[in-house]
Structures are given as C-alpha cells and as structure tokens.
C-alpha cells in the first residue's frame, strides 16, 4: 500500500522548493519529539534516500549471509545441529524479506534493490565475504557476528522510521536465538577434545577482527553518522557500539577458555571498559571494495541462484494468469 504515488521523482528544483526550511524544521521537530515517521508522511528526500540505502544494504546482508552458513548445512555434525542451522538460515531469508518489505514502503521497488545487489552496485556487510572453513566457524558466526548484529540492531528498534523499527523488533527476537545457538556450539567445542578446542580458537582468531569491523568506520571517519543521529535513525555511534560489544564479549571468551586475538587488549578498571588494539582499516576498505576473500564467489552464487530460479518465477506467473482466466470464464 505504501508504494503508490511515490515512484514519480520530483525534479530537482521542485524537490528543493518543496523542502522549505519550515517543512524541514517541522519534520525535525517531530523526530525530536520521538514521533515515528510513517510511509506516507512527508519526509526530506535525503532522509528517504538514507533509509533506502541503509535498509536495503541490511536486507542484502541477510540474503548474502545465508551463504557462509549454508556452506555447512550438509556437514553439520548431528541431526539436531543440522535442524537448528536450517532454521537459522531460513530466519536470515525471513529477515531479508522483512527488510525489503520495509524499504519498499519508501517507494523503491524490490526489483530495483535485487538488481542493485546482483550487479554489485549495492553494498552488503563486509563480514559475509569471509569463508567458513570449519564447523567452528558456524559457532563463531552465531556468537560473534550475530552478537555484533544484535548490538547494532537493538537501538534500531527505536529508529524514527516506523516500518524499519517494527521489522527490527522481529529480527532482534530471532537474532537472540542465533547468538545463543552459536555460543552453544562454541561451548561444546571448548569443552571437547583438545582438537575441538583448537578448532574453536582458530575460529575466534579469524572472526574476531572482522566482527569488530562490522560496526563500520571509526567515528572520526564515519561520513553519514551525524545526520543519521540527528534523524534518530542511529542512536549510538559506531565506536560506542563497538566498545559495548567488546565489553560484553571478552568475558564470554574467558568463560569459554579461549583467547581473544589482540595483544593490546586490557581491562581499564577506571573506565570499566576493555581497551582494544588498532583495527586493520585497510583490510576493511579492501573487503568493501570487493577484494575480500569471497566477494566474487558470493555475488556469483547469488546471480546463479537468481538465474536458475527464473523458470520458477515464470511458471508461477503463468499459473496465476491461467487461474485468473478460469475464474473469469
């Protein structure tokens, strides 16, 4: 219902005229009063664009995120683990759909978004460009990657844009299952044979730093942050969330008896925070640019799945058309 009439783009002059200082101030006042903005409400074009970019990137991340986990579906160590992993991967697809649906309320179409993903025009989270080399990686993803995602997403439940906030409420509930099942895998491995424990450590070694990068560039380099905070799309800065994540996760690693791969990590009793070492931002930039270990593979797989599913979409359309014809007759 929300997409009607939003497709026509106003000419630039027209948009600027419509966005009078008065209107912008009224919009900001609504946001400041913690009112939710709903799809058909007036909003600044830049607010709309920011949300479309953020929500669709988020959706793409969920969809691409199915791949590193799907890699272990056929090799999960037990039927129980396999059933759980299938449920988790299905959730990721669900999350992608809630988010695409929220983005569509802003007047963009599903096809446009999917197309941007398939052509490589759109970005998705850097984390999913790393490979899942062992079963322990499935544990590390649930524990660390979904843990970082929760840290990011819980404040988004209070985002000023209603449909995004509502989608995030559902997602956060489900992510909590993801994180716990990941920790459960890590716990089994950490309490297992020395080889299993080494496997868990290896997974932590490889996923720790990429997980910290999930929070995005440090505040001094984050170009979208200030405006997103003013619009209450974002509630905390990248560095604040990263710090929270480190603070809650390090004690969990200690419980597992695993070592966080950071020589500079130390607890600062005065502030109550863990101080952590310098993140390799060059790696982050390279992965975002498409040069991570799996970028090409991820996109190829998605493109192949889309192409191979074309006949299904076509058949469903043909069937629907035929049924409509029969009812009309």
């Amino acid at each position, binding site marked *: *219902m*929300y*997409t*009607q009439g939003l497709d026509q783009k106003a000419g630039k002059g027209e948009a600027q005229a419509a966005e009078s200082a008065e209107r912008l101030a009224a919009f900001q006042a609504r946001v400041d009063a913690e009112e939710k903005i*709903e799809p*058909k*409400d*007036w909003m600044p074009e830049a607010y709309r664009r920011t949300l479309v970019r953020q929500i669709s990137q988020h959706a793409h991340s969920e969809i691409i995120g199915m791949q590193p986990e799907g890699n272990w579906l056929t090799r999960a160590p037990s039927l129980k683990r396999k059933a759980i992993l299938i*449920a988790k991967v*299905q*959730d990721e697809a*669900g999350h992608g*759909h*809630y988010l695409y*649906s*929220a983005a*569509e*309320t802003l007047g963009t*179409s*599903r*096809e446009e978004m999917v197309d941007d993903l398939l052509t490589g025009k759109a970005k998705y989270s850097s984390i999913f460009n790393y490979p899942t080399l062992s079963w322990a990686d499935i544990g590390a993803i649930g524990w660390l990657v979904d843990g970082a995602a929760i840290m990011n997403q819980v404040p988004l439940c209070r985002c000023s844009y209603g449909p995004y906030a*509502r*989608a995030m409420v559902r997602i956060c509930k*489900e992510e909590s299952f993801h994180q716990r099942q990941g920790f459960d895998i890590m716990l089994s491995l950490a309490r297992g044979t020395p080889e299993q424990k080494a496997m868990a450590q290896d997974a932590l070694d490889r996923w720790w730093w990429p997980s910290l990068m999930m929070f995005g560039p440090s505040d001094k380099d984050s170009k979208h942050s200030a405006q997103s905070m003013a619009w209450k799309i974002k509630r905390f800065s990248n560095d604040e969330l990263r710090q929270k994540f480190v603070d809650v996760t390090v004690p969990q690693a200690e419980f597992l008896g695993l070592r966080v791969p950071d020589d500079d990590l130390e607890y600062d009793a005065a502030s109550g925070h863990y101080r952590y070492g310098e993140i390799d931002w060059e790696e982050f930039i390279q992965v975002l640019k498409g040069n991570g270990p799996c970028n090409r593979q991820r996109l190829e797989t998605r493109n192949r799945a889309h192409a191979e599913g074309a006949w299904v*979409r076509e058949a*469903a*359309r043909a*069937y*629907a*058309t035929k*049924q*409509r014809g029969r009812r009309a007759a």
Partner: protein
Amino acid sequence: MQDENWPLWEVFIRSKAGLAHRHAGSIHAADAQMAIDHARDVYTRRSEGVSIWVVRSADLVASDPADSEAFFEPAADKIYRHPTFYEIPDGVENL
C-alpha cells in the same frame, strides 16, 4: 509483460483466537494462495499466527496523512464523549 514481477500483498495475522488480525508486513506473490503460503513462511515461523489475511496492496485505500489534522480534528473538541468528562458526586457508586 505487465505482470513480469510478482505483485505486492499486505499481510494481516491473527495471533490467536479472540484477537483481531493485525498488519504484519508485505510479501510478493504471483497469486493469493502463494501470498498466504509465503506469508506463513516469512511471518509465522514461531507460531505467531492462527489465521492470515492477504490483500493486494494496490487494492488498499488509505486516508491521506497530509490531511490528517483536518480529517481527525472534529473529534478533538468533543471531550464530552469520554466518561471522564462527567463529575460524579462522592457517595454515588456503580456508575
């Protein structure tokens, strides 16, 4: 081809008997049955529903938020429509 992309449907879910259907989100599907099947998979993976309605998004008619102030204004000054408008003397019960 006009129907190249599956149309959009709005999804309403009754979470349990006794409660009204509530908007849950939207879904793309080629026809109504597929919309219901997809809505089940996307919105009720954890027993969130006992009944699903779907309706073509294009068929929904909504009030215009730009007019909402004027549109809903007539109710604003009729406070006598609320029971709290009336003062009940002490000693009167069951009213």
